């Protein structure tokens, strides 16, 4: 879709200790960056449940940013490594659900890296702008067969469980 007026809507999950502080620093230093990432503060990037991403896409987000402390710098010792593992899984999962993996970006930004965070936001905004609107749930509606197929899988699964027990 080549809509010039398209402004991507991106949800950003920023960890309290590094990236959220970096975004504050970008502000204090009056760095200007794309307005597309709307920020949600979590204590740690490890709190970001992959379902949050699906929720965001289902609600109409075009992209998601997860930002945490650099590997080795986690305020909670090593929880950003768990984010990395989940991110690897998310990257595998997204294309299967009809979402380009470029729509999700994992960023490391220390509390001193306002500039880097601002640049990452600009980059992701541009990347998503190029991809165009996602319209994830609407796409589902247009192709209703998919939902029925998914529901059928769930039903089969439930039946299979009942047989086993």
């Amino acid at each position, binding site marked *: 879709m080549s809509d010039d007026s398209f402004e991507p*809507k991106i*949800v950003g999950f920023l960890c*309290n*200790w*590094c990236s*959220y*502080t970096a*975004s*504050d620093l*970008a*502000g*204090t230093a*009056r*760095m*200007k*960056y794309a*307005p597309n990432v*709307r*920020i*949600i*503060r*979590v*204590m*740690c990037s*490890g*709190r*970001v*449940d*992959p*379902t*949050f991403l*699906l*929720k*965001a896409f*289902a*609600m*109409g*987000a075009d992209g998601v940013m997860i930002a945490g*402390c650099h590997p*080795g*710098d986690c*305020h*909670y*010792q*090593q*929880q950003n490594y*768990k984010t990395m593992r*989940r991110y690897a899984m998310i990257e595998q999962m997204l294309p299967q659900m009809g979402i380009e993996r470029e729509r999700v970006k994992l960023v490391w930004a*220390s*509390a*001193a*890296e306002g500039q880097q965070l*601002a640049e990452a936001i600009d980059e992701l905004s541009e990347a998503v702008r190029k991809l165009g609107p996602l*319209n994830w*749930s*609407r796409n*589902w*509606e247009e192709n209703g067969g998919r*939902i029925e197929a998914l*529901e059928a899988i769930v039903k089969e699964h439930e039946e299979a469980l009942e047989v086993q027990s």
Partner: protein
Amino acid sequence: MITTQKSARIGVYICHCGTNIAGALDVEQLTAFADKLPQVVLAKNYKYMCSDPGQDLVKKDIAEHGLDRVVVVACSPLLHEATFRKAAEDAGLNPFLVQMANIREQVAWVTRDKVDALEKAKAHVAAAARRVAQHEPLERKSVPITPRVLIVGGGIAGIEAALTLADADKEVILVEREPSIGGHMSMFDKTFPTLDCAACILTPKMTAVKSNPHIKLLTHSEVEKVDGAVGSYKVRVRRKARYISEENCVGCMACIDECVFPKPKFPNEYDQGLGLRKPVYLPFPQAVPPVPIIDPETCLQLSKGQCKQKCVEACGERQAVLLEQQDSIEEFEVGAIIVATGFKPFNPSVMPYYGYGTLPNVYTSLEIERLINAAGPTGGKLMLRDGSTPKRVVIVHCVGSRDKNYHTYCSKVCCMYSLKLAHLVKEKTEAEIFNCYIDIRTPGKGFEEFYNRVQNEGVHFIRGKVGDVSPVVSDNGQPTNMMTIQVDDTLLGKVRKIDADMVILAVGLEPQKDAEEVRRMFGISCSTEGFFLEKHPKLAPVNTANDGVFLAGVCQGVKDIPETVAQASAAAAKALALIDRGSIELEPNTAIIDEEHCSGCRVCNNLCPFEAIEYDEEKGVSRVIAELCKGCGTCVAACPAQAITGVHFTNNQIIAEIEGVLYDSAPPRKEAVSV
């Protein structure tokens, strides 16, 4: 899942922050937007919400309009969340029923376009309002604080902080990795601009540390591990083998005198390698503790296993020489930590054009400090390598500083110490002195006056960066002591060549080699150049993002001795204020496992680095130990049964926020599409 809205009476308060916010977006339109959000009873805007009248506005409305939730749309919650929580609490509202929307740092200050800014601000406001409706009243838990402070680094910063805390009758553990405390300051001869002798003002403090009953001094020791949290950090310290018992040694130095090496043979690290020592040595005469140390690499017994062990014999029945000594581990519990690990001088050997390391009479400033120090390797006589007195000396400023190839920052102290060295070298040798500088920076009490004084003493100043130092070869091809220094004199507008027999490189200050590991151990960040990051550059210059860990001295950024002492006092005061309270209130955002829903799969167990999740074999469920949980929420995100609640960061609260930030993009949907 679409979050169901609980009934709530929300008040939204939008701050202008002067023109910081109001100048960047239309606050009236934002207020009108907020007013129409579900469950919002009222929306107001005010010039400065953090001011007393601003806070009173909230308090009054809580009483008059029966608000049970408050959203403050202003700056970062990291700045003012505590302020508005307190205001709510004063008005009888649970402080956790307040949510902030950050539209200053994250919107107003970073968005070019006013319309874009308004749209982004609306999303943040919608998210906060939707989230706050999901908030639950919470109670903070109070835990006791161990009234003991760990200070890492025994330079002037660590010493000052230790003495300040000890003055308040608080226990201090002072850990220094070198064999003596004193740090870089103890290596200096005089201090600028007053020219007090560094040793005269420092050594009384060093001995005071040693004799203070409240201070446990651990030299030649390093912190290895830090666990726990503010109020009760558990630290493990490795006491490296000194091979001489601090308890038994009386400081007679007989072991040094009797060492099988008749004369000092090995370069003394403390003298920057300019002086020599034996394998058993005291780094410098005023070392504290005044106990020698044996270097295992040069000691014949320790390195080769064969020596007459004259030192043991000399010590006799005091039995202080312990050649069998091993490293030992000590563990402490402390309530607060002050990191004062100092700096490392820039090593100029990476700049071949200055000849450091290849030309014998090119020195760093720290080496010159040792050479002019009466307690230094030459007894305070400034001489060239061949023993002669220098006649022409060039001081090269900004070596490694203000240089995009090395450090772009200004090391701040070099101008003043170069002026000081110019004065001292002139006083000692009558040499002709040239200062080659980019800019002379002398902002400080008495600094400019000192600059004038040195100028009047006849020291030459050349404005320009030195490009090259090369040796002068005599007519018959023999090397000489002389060097040619090429400098681009920007005031004359031409390149000048100066011949001199001594070059002093005014090296900058940089973070310690292992600053990375140290900051990770203490859970603190660093700024881009590698110095440790304070919590706020202006308003919390000694705090770190890690509660209970404070900073003092150059490890946080370049500073001179007076500034270091001031900061160390501040860090001590902050640590004192913390540990003196006796207890500390913890944020309640821990994880809780609902045993009804826990299937006992134990996925969460291994995710917790704090071992805060235990498994109840009998019931077959996992349980969070609240005291150990730090509230990262990783287990919450991982629980396949959604049996873990991240308090104050619940799934519902975060999902409400997601719905909020996407308030304007929710697609027309069938209810079937739920995730």
